[in-house]
């Protein structure tokens, strides 16, 4: 019987190309528990007006007259006129 040399397959440098590695990987993936699907609530891209903290309307702006009085008359208005 003639001698038939044994063929040796060299593993590829890229582990993903290796049949051994890919086989292990497949096995691991198969044993991992399947993740439960999560439904996330997606926020709308445009916020509501009430959520815009930095935006102001001139109509909403008011100045307390007591504060103005204190600034204009820090010493107070005297009762003698």
């Amino acid at each position: 019987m003639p001698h038939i040399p044994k063929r040796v397959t060299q593993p590829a440098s890229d582990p993903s190309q290796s049949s051994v590695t890919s086989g292990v990987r497949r096995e691991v993936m198969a044993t991992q528990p399947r993740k439960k699907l999560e439904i996330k609530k997606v926020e709308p891209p445009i916020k509501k007006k009430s959520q815009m903290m930095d935006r102001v309307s001139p109509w909403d702006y008011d100045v307390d007259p007591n504060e103005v009085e204190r600034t204009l008359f820090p010493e107070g208005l005297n009762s003698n006129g």
Partner: protein
Amino acid sequence: MGESATADWCASEEAPAPSQDARQLIKHCVEGAWRHLGWRRLLMTGFLRDVLVRHFSNPRFIEEPDLRAAIWQETAPTGILIESIWRWRGDLTEKRPAVIIKPNAYKNVRVLHNDFVGTNEEGNECFATIWVGSHTLFCIHGSGAGAEILGAEVQRELTQFGPQIARTFNLKKFQVTGVGGISELEEATENFLVPVTVGWAYEEVWTLEPEALRFAGMKFTFNLDC
């Protein structure tokens, strides 16, 4: 700041001609109303508008070089919009800077008992009281830096001429009380505003003239002989 943003605020090569519309404003409207009716909040709104219209009607009056192209005109196209808040429309401020004037709350400060000053030589009672309030001038522009520049221009004009304004128009006080932080305008897209608040105080004086002579008393006679 990018080139497109700065280009909005660079003065053009040719400065616009002074607006002729502003010349007649203060003398014929505000001063006349003040002399006839005395101070009131609506008059103060008009007065502040007229001061700013006059200021922005001529490039010579404008301190900030980047604002010298923003010349006010009564009709479109105007370089700057100056209006009271009830005449303001958001779409008008899309393309140009604006100053929107809003009257705030005002209060009575009583400095005399029942506001009573005394009786004059004709026998009429004289009264006086003081009203304190404020206006906020919203300096609006499409860029934040533009709003800051406009706010500073308005604040400096009113602060520095404040003593003269108070003297001329017989105000107890006229003073920029504060400049608020910069905010984004709610109504329009990508517009910024800087609020400049002006406080004022004026005296309201009045006299009550009775239509008939003062009631001095009543004499009673009793007939005790009955």
